[in-house]
């Protein structure tokens, strides 16, 4: 493993320090934590429901890169691929609460759910109103009431953008939670990997793929997918993922949103080629794409691969996605 780091145990604190130092007008670090909070002038001048997200590190620019007016109020970074601890989340909640309550956006992993839950209990003891929405857009994992359920992956950034825009516009906590849940219910993602990520503390890719293999349905923490196949032209990869995702939408009329997300080690060039194939095929299928986005938005360290997210969107969601926002990563 070759990485540009110092000590493995300092990765997250040094990364957050670098991010804050290079974006002082946008974010500041919450003392004693690896959480960041908005630092723009408008933050202290306007009241709104706080929007806090967080999770393990290694998915940059998620989440700290989405802190800013119109998106997240604060973001909490755990160790690499490890949920942050409740006390850090609790500090972030306190830093953003302006009396109107705080919405927590949590990706559906047992660790994240439990740590955010504990933080919620701590904040509620301070009489801070808290609502939680749990993102579970990864349809490569079967949903079931008897399991952990689906994972939260790239769709999270779309949820953060829409909910963030609504919070800025003054929506109250209960409505925000309801909106967020509705967005989540309409957001579906599948990812593919050409190469697994190398977790710094582990030192080698968590699983091996042959020189001509691609794995379908991987998660953002090297979770294995549902099948390994020979790599195909981008057009065919796009076709396969679209076929699988689109059957999740019973109604294929109306407006859709597309996110082509790079996993960290795949150049923008390939992401655009894949996006071109996705949009061509959706056009052939007469599915109307009203908004699309391409880039390294929710990564998995240096994993090579992409994920495709499709969302069935209400008109107002498109407007909220298009609203300009000043963040590092959107």
């Amino acid at each position, binding site marked *: 493993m070759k990485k540009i780091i110092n000590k493995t145990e300092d990765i997250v604190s040094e990364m957050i320090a670098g991010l804050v130092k290079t974006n002082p007008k946008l974010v500041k670090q919450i003392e004693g934590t690896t959480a960041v909070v908005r630092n723009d002038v408008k933050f202290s001048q306007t009241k709104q429901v706080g929007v806090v997200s967080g999770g393990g590190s290694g998915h940059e620019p998620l989440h700290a890169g989405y802190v800013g007016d119109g998106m997240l109020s604060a973001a909490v970074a755990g160790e690499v691929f490890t949920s942050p601890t409740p006390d850090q989340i609790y500090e972030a909640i306190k830093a953003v609460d302006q009396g109107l309550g705080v919405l927590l956006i949590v990706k559906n992993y047992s660790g994240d759910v439990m740590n955010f839950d504990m933080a919620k209990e701590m904040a509620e003891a301070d009489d801070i109103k808290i609502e939680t929405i749990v993102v579970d857009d990864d349809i490569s994992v079967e949903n079931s009431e008897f399991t*952990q359920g689906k994972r939260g992956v790239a769709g999270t950034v779309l949820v953060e953008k829409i909910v963030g825009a609504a919070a800025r516009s003054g929506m109250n906590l209960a409505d925000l939670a309801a909106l967020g849940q509705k967005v989540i219910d309409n957001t579906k993602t599948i990812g593919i990997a050409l190469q697994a990520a190398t977790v710094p503390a582990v030192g080698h890719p968590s699983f091996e793929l042959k020189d001509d293999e691609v794995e379908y349905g991987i998660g953002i923490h090297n979770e294995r997918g549902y099948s390994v196949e020979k790599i195909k032209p981008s057009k065919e990869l796009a076709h396969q993922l679209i076929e699988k995702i689109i059957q999740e939408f019973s109604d294929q009329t109306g407006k859709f949103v597309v996110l082509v997300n790079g996993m960290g080690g795949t150049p923008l060039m390939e992401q655009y080629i894949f996006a071109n194939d996705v949009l061509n095929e959706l056009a052939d299928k007469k599915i109307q794409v009203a908004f699309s986005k391409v880039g390294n938005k929710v990564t998995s360290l240096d994993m090579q691969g992409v994920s495709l997210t499709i969302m069935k969107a209400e008109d107002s969601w498109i407007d909220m996605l298009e609203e300009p926002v000043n963040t590092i990563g959107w």
Partner: protein
Amino acid sequence: MELSLADTKKWIELFVQKVESEKSQLNELDTAIGDGDHGTNMDRGMKAITDAFSKKEPEDIVSLHKTVAFALIQKVGGASGPLYGTAFLDMSKKAKDDADLTTLIQTGLAGLKRRGQSDVGMKTMIDVWEPVANALKADEFNQSVIDEALTSNKALVATKGRASYLEEKSKGHLDPGAQSSAYLFEALLTVLGA
């Protein structure tokens, strides 16, 4: 039976040593069916426990359990942090009224189930805690209880935690949290002199 303060501390210290020396082993188990960090996560917690003990010597079992709980909650993160943390926090609260070892382990187990929304048979650490709690109650706690718990855990299909994403493929792998819990109870066995 109540464990003395000294024995309780020894128990935790043995656990700390074991996890620290088996850190990469735990990471490897987690690499197979999770995200490869269980050893690293637990190791952070172990260092925090040692730190906390050296900063302030626990005065009684209640504060000892609380110290352990806070170290784990504040430093481990992931799934194992809130789980072990909740278990020890609940044990600390319980110890105020009743410090019986069996009662405490049962209380910890209940905490795990509550926090994890889970139960035995889901291929988690609970698969070790529950048989140990039962064995303590029946006064039959020994190494084979742990060994058998691990063996049956290995055969299970995971339905909670990251391993559940693998469905059938999780079969045949030992759950990393079950292994770290096995270390916890093996340390207890040593202290009990069994």
